[in-house]
């Protein structure tokens, strides 16, 4: 019963005293032990810490009874700082790093009663789309062991898809929550920029990064978002917008989509979408229509330039953010003859190839003489991409959400794209725009390819209107059973 349970069900079981937090926790830890040798989804398993925490919930039952995620096992992407628990960002340079504080999102889930069972594998510093850039080895897709789970939050997606935990957090700079969610057949939500505090998230692209939940059901994503959202004095970019009661809004809507206008940027689909993926998306759109939604063709003429813009902006920000890893205040230090030599050797040995590539590209586009031609230009095109979305979301023909595939293909084979970074980047074509525009977006399981690999439907919404995305996703979930399907590994 526990194995296929959602966060919502486990919380209710704890509340009704049908299960203790310790029983729920031991069960999740047993699944890690059984499944993770094949998946490699976890960098660190915090078994003793998790059990002690679960037992404290049981002892203090009255205090925790009404907490929204009481007793729910939680996995955290390993770029979210956890006080006293190793946080590596899947990098050699932080392999032994133990943060002295919790990320705000982590502290909020803690306050909501969740129990952290471990830290999940990811691409190094969240840079990648396949989890193959982890210094500790790749994660396997639970649906096919020879395929990637996507990335960069690959471990979080695999852990949820395999039924190890019902809830994980990831971070999304260019699709790193949504793309692995899509490729692993789970829900992945990237909130509006500013909706969730970034305090304690190891920075990659600071104008793009957002923390978001991965779950098996929309209702669980609604609970998790409600718990982590809201202004935080520790992050000046976190927004003061009020946080709605997302689960209550879902109940009120009751799955209806009458009057809801959903935009579809058909012309974007020309960019190499796999026929199986396209079929699944078209079928999903019909389901939404049957629920009462009106489909509208929308033009996002500059979205086709989102990849180059993203890789210029994100690498520029990364080169600046990663300058802090210099072997002085924390992390790995290589011996060197003098300070500069120490810096160069520390970073050469501490960073992997993809991180080095991005730091160098970012250093270049910010350098004198090239700044205007690349970085400034990319920022101007970013404005155009943003305006395309604003136009679609406003005026007489306004839509409430925009639908497209999360990824142009289903999960690809491990090793297939590692030697060609540009090919890897191109697969982010549908996800990076939401980060550039700061908009919320969700990936929802919407079927399988002929090879039985999951396909994700992506919905992008208006700023701070995660509620509409959840409502549309929930309506879709009510009429479909994709989310109930489980990979073989989880049924063994």
């Amino acid at each position, binding site marked *: 019963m526990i194995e296929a349970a959602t966060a919502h069900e486990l919380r209710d079981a704890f509340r009704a005293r049908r299960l203790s937090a310790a029983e729920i926790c031991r069960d999740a830890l047993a699944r890690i032990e059984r499944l993770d040798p094949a998946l490699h989804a976890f960098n660190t398993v915090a078994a003793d810490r998790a059990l002690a925490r679960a037992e404290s919930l049981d002892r203090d039952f009255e205090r925790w009874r009404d907490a929204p995620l009481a007793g729910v096992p939680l996995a955290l992407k390993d770029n979210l700082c956890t006080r006293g628990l190793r946080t590596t960002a899947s990098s050699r340079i932080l392999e032994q*790093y*133990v*943060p*002295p*504080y919790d990320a705000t999102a982590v502290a909020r889930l803690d306050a909501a009663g969740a129990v952290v069972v471990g830290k999940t594998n990811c691409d190094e510093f969240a840079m990648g789309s396949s989890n193959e850039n982890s210094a500790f080895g790749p994660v396997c897709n639970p649906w096919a062991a020879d395929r990637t789970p996507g990335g960069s939050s690959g471990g979080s997606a695999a852990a949820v898809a395999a039924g190890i935990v019902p809830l994980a957090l990831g971070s999304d700079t260019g699709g790193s929550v949504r793309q692995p969610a899509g490729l692993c057949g789970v829900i992945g939500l990237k909130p509006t*920029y*500013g909706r969730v505090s970034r305090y304690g998230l190891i920075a990659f692209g600071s104008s793009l990064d957002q923390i978001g939940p991965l779950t098996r059901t929309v209702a669980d994503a609604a609970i998790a978002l409600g718990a982590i959202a809201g202004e935080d*004095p520790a992050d*000046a*970019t976190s*927004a*003061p917008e009020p946080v709605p009661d997302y689960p209550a809004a879902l109940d009120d809507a009751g799955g209806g989509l009458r009057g809801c206008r959903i935009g579809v940027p058909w012309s974007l689909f020309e960019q190499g979408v796999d026929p199986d993926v396209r079929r699944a998306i078209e079928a999903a759109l019909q389901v939404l229509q049957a629920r009462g939604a009106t489909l509208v063709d929308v033009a996002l003429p*500059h979205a086709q*330039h989102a*990849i*180059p*813009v993203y*890789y*210029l902006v994100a690498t520029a920000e990364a080169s600046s953010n990663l*300058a802090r890893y210099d072997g*002085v*205040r*924390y*992390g790995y*230090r290589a011996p*060197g*003859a*003098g*300070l*500069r*030599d*120490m*810096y*160069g*050797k520390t*970073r*050469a040995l501490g960073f992997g*190839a993809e991180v*080095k*590539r991005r*730091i*160098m*590209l970012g*250093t*270049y586009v910010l350098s004198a003489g090239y700044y205007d*031609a*690349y970085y400034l*230009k990319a*920022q*101007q*095109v*970013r*404005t*155009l991409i943003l305006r395309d979305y604003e136009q679609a979301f406003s005026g007489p023909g306004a839509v409430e959400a925009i639908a497209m595939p999360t990824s142009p293909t289903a999960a690809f084979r491990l090793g297939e794209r590692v030697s*060609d*970074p*540009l090919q890897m*980047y191109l697969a982010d074509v549908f996800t990076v725009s939401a980060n*550039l525009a*700061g908009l919320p977006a969700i990936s929802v399981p919407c079927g399988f390819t002929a090879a039985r690999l999951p396909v994700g439907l992506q919905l992008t919404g208006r700023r701070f209107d995660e509620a509409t995305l959840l409502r549309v996703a929930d309506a879709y979930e009510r009429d479909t059973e994709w989310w109930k399907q489980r990979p073989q590994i989880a049924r063994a």
Partner: protein
Amino acid sequence: MRTGFSRDEVAAIARLAHLELETTELDLFTRQLSDVLTYAAEVQQIDTTAIPPTASVVTRHAADRTDEVRPSLDRNEALAGAPDAALETGLFKVPRVIG
């Protein structure tokens, strides 16, 4: 504008970024970064006359706050992750810089 990188340029960028590259890495990155930059140069074809740049989508800034003393990280905790710290004096130690 020309695109792509020479090997010397990549070496110069690596020095700016404090990355000591091996010869094999230098060759590989020269090719890979040239591919990416050539592709990214397509942004230069887009007309952006009179379009302001977007550095961040944050619309409101709460830059001002009351100047109150609040608890912060304990000094020893802050030093605990350092590869070489002098706990008694509260300093991060680095290799010799002068002479």
